[in-house]
């Protein structure tokens, strides 16, 4: 298992280096996406459905009960 404490401590140093390298970048606009994000909508009608999808998905879930994925409440 990777050493989490070491990764975080060394990572903080890395972040400081990166921050220093960008310290003279002017306060300008921020680029989050290079294209406009659109709301994706579909026609108000039933879409195509793979009748086998639910079965495939059920196989993937670690727990399945009464038609619902069964998960741990909280760790």
């Amino acid at each position: 298992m990777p050493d989490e404490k070491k990764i975080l401590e060394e990572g903080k140093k890395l972040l400081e280096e990166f921050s220093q390298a960008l310290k003279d970048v002017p306060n300008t606009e921020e680029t989050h996406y290079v294209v406009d994000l659109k709301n994706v909508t579909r026609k108000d009608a039933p879409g195509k459905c793979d009748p086998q999808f639910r079965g495939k998905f059920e196989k993937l879930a670690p727990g399945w009960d009464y038609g619902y994925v069964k998960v741990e409440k909280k760790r």
Partner: protein
Amino acid sequence: MMEHLEKLIDKKDEVNAFIKKYPEKAREQAGKKGRLAGKVLAIKSCINVEGCLTSCASKTLDNYIAPYDATVVERIKKEGGVILGMANMDEFACGATGDSSYYGPTDNPAAPGRVSGGSSSGAAASVAAGYVDMALGSDTGGSIRNPACYCGVVGFKPTYGMVSRYGLCDMAMSLEQIGPVANSVADAALLLDVIGGYDPKDATSLNSKTDFSKSLNPDLKGKRLGYAKQFDDLITDEGIRKNIHAALEVLKDGGAKIVDVELPSLAKAIPTYYLNVYVEFFSATRKYDGRRYGHKIEENCGEEVLRRIMLGSYISQAEWQGKFYKKGLQARSLIRNELLRALKGVDVLVGPVVPKPPHKLHEKVTDPRVNYAYDVFTVVANLSGVPAGSVPSGKVNGVPNGLQVIGKPLEDQKVLDVMAGFERMQ
């Protein structure tokens, strides 16, 4: 077709290019008509292929069998392409060498004993080794172009939005594009024709036309190609520097004019890229909680994946946003504006893909800066959303090298044309 497929099925995977092969599924797909009829493909293991292990090369998803096809896979199957298997890669695409895969590193078929490059290591290696005709990779900061360069094949990252990302387990959503790896520019253009175009399932998808292969024009005469002096400042290997300058001479011989351009903030590209990637990757991995599929990521991943998650979490905290993420987003604007300015007076930019040769297979690299340095020339295209490709430019000390061609947004055709022109001159 069947004879060709059987030959490929029988080939032993000597470089660990595949995580899993599916010969029976491939035989079922063979024989269909379409633009990819007769072509056998490998798919990077972060792209959902129904019924196949889509593990992202991580223990986290080592039991995840994709319940649906990504849009790109649907389109490949519709056009008669045959998928032979799932290609190896860096774990969750977090690497530039291919050696962080849970399933072991991929040897370089063109330079045995060296890493194949990454993160689309298996995609490039499977094409270079002759295991498949073409492959799909994904490119967040150079992950198609870097392994294509080191393995001596063609790799192309399309304009952001050109290819649907539906069904891609992405590393950083605002940067990553799926793209082709092939033995020739013509084949890469053909695969791009098939996978490109609008997809209503992807909010970032653009309504763009994709008929690159028919329009491919390798004529270099009169082309204005920009070269930034900052490339020379940041190449750390003398052999690669000579190889790239020899490539410029080849382009000139073909009738192109090399124009000096400036990318003054190129040295800021790595810090900018990683400050963006850490945050986006942390966000992207929240779904890998092991509750609906797979296992909890933090308990099953390797060191580099954990580093990116932990640092993404750390800088996402409100008190740090101004110093790290916000600054990274502002620097992204700066780099993007500079690149678009450099592209203004030229058709495309040409330059190196990588600053140094690939390290040796199984060499232990403990400092992340060493691996991050591979990305310095490739991340600018992702930060800016522009198209870029790698085309073989010969060998440096026995290791393949590549020329990178970078274009303006939606001018993928021009990039492919210059790549084809250079390929023809080689």
